[in-house]
């Protein structure tokens, strides 16, 4: 049996939207998410003594205190977490660990991604993807050796992983397409999904525009806006709440590189170590999970994660996928919310959505998309260029 000191007790999540018609400062969005997560957990705001949030746009320095002040909190544990797509999952284990050692008891995990009000008119709501992702800072290795070579944004980097996979194991484009199709099918029961009402076929994926070989448009997430939050608290307090507590039963984290160029191995990813620690800590077997909530910025991310998290051997991921039905009613449910491929990628909230969905399933609150049985889930986050890796094992009480 894994750790049972801390549990997820409340969830807040906004519908992903391509255009956000109500711009908010990040601190405003944090306040709104906090209010909703506390209400969901039926916990009074005065009980909050821990706070985790991403870098704060309105306060690039002193972000945690800026948020505590804005939200009117007195916290014993506060941290900005900067792990890209793994930020949400990284926050959850930090909250659980802080609770287990007694640093705090009730911790807000906040991941808003909405546009701020425009300073002077202008177009508030268009999504702008920063191509350099911070790599253009003075002294940055990426600025000197990656950006001038055209290795910017994320797609070229993940395409390198896919092309390497092709060279080493052979790549079946239909299999990768099937991941996108099954996730899109799952999105059809998620009212927050950007692609609800828009199922696709393998043929659609194969015929979609080539972006960075071998990745095609429908294998790539759609950036959008949204927000998600969790309330993590002690097992004792969670047991008094309205929902089935979701224990953070095991966790692992591993980082080795920022640029995919310098990854120790393009196919043997740090997720292996992170997942190994998480499963070991939880005392859980890969076979026992009821839901795999796997970070899916691209189809290749899912394939490589399935292998590296130990669900099958290296090189056997495609057989694993082909032999299984990844849909909600299938024999190996994957990303029952549709994943980010099916639900959209609202920035860091897209990463946290893999955890909120697992928690929702374990609580029995997934509505139309509810699994018949869900007691144990694997959720992970992947940041940057398959760089920051966080794995969680979540268990229903």
């Amino acid at each position, binding site marked *: 049996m894994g750790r049972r000191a801390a549990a997820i007790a409340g969830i807040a999540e906004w519908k992903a939207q391509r255009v956000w018609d109500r711009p908010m400062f990040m601190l405003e969005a944090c306040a709104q998410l906090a209010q909703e997560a506390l209400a969901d957990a039926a916990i009074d705001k005065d009980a909050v003594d821990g706070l985790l949030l991403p870098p704060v746009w309105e306060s690039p320095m002193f972000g945690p205190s800026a948020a505590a002040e804005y939200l009117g909190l007195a916290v014993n544990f506060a941290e900005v977490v900067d792990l890209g797509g793994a930020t949400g999952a990284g926050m959850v284990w930090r909250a659980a660990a802080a609770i287990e050692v007694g640093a705090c008891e009730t911790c807000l995990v906040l991941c808003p991604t909405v546009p701020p009000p425009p300073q002077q008119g202008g177009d508030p709501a268009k999504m702008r993807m920063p*191509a*350099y992702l911070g790599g*253009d*800072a*003075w*002294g*940055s*290795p990426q*600025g*000197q*050796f*990656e*950006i*001038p*070579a*055209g*290795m*910017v*944004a994320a*797609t*070229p980097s993940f*395409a*390198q*992983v*896919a*092309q*390497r996979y*092709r*060279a080493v194991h052979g790549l079946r484009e239909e299999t990768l397409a099937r991941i996108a199709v099954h996730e899109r099918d799952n999105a059809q029961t998620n009212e927050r999904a950007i692609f609800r009402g828009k199922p696709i076929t393998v043929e659609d994926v194969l015929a979609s*525009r*080539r*972006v*960075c*070989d*071998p*990745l095609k448009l429908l294998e790539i997430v759609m950036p959008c806006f949204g927000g998600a939050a969790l309330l993590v608290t002690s097992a004792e307090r969670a047991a008094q709440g309205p929902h089935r507590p979701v224990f953070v039963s095991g966790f692992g984290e591993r980082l080795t590189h920022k*640029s*995919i*160029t*310098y990854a120790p191995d*393009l196919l043997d990813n740090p997720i292996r170590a992170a997942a190994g620690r998480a499963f070991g800590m939880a005392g859980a077997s890969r076979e026992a999970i009821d839901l795999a909530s796997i970070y899916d910025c691209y189809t290749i991310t899912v394939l490589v994660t399935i292998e590296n998290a130990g669900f099958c051997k290296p090189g056997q991921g495609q057989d694993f996928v082909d032999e299984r039905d990844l849909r909600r009613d299938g024999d190996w449910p994957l990303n029952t919310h549709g994943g980010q491929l099916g639900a959209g990628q609202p920035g860091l909230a897209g990463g946290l959505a893999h955890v909120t969905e697992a928690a929702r399933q374990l609580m029995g609150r997934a509505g139309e998309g509810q699994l018949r049985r869900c007691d144990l889930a694997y959720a992970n986050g992947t940041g940057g260029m398959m760089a920051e890796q966080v794995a969680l094992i979540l268990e229903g009480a």
Partner: protein
Amino acid sequence: MGLQHTPEGRPVALANPTSRPFFDAAREGRLVLQRCPRDGFFFYPRSHCPRCLGTDWSWEAASGRGTVHSFTIDRVGHAPGLGAEVPYAIAIVELEEGPRMTARLVDCDPDSVHVGQEVEARFEPLLDVAVVHFTPRA
């Protein structure tokens, strides 16, 4: 900002004291790498060996030859300033000396690029630095 741009808007490196020797050599058509006496070559330029954190490394000439470890063909042009050149191939090149380096593959048909392909460095001086490309070996 850690970049500078050509008049055409291409982003190129802003050299710093640590990386200056690399770019000076590249402007002269030479690839140089740092070598730690214990742990061998490393790339990109650093103050400390990334394996032992020693500082007794030296700059040494590299062969400029390598193989394509992986690659992609960017058909939409993610990189500002390169949009007019699509489709272009970006490769992770494994140098003969061991380290990997990302570079564009030039003077070749992008669709002919393959993993394991033997390539050699080409240098394009720009502003006060140079961009290192690779091209298939004859």
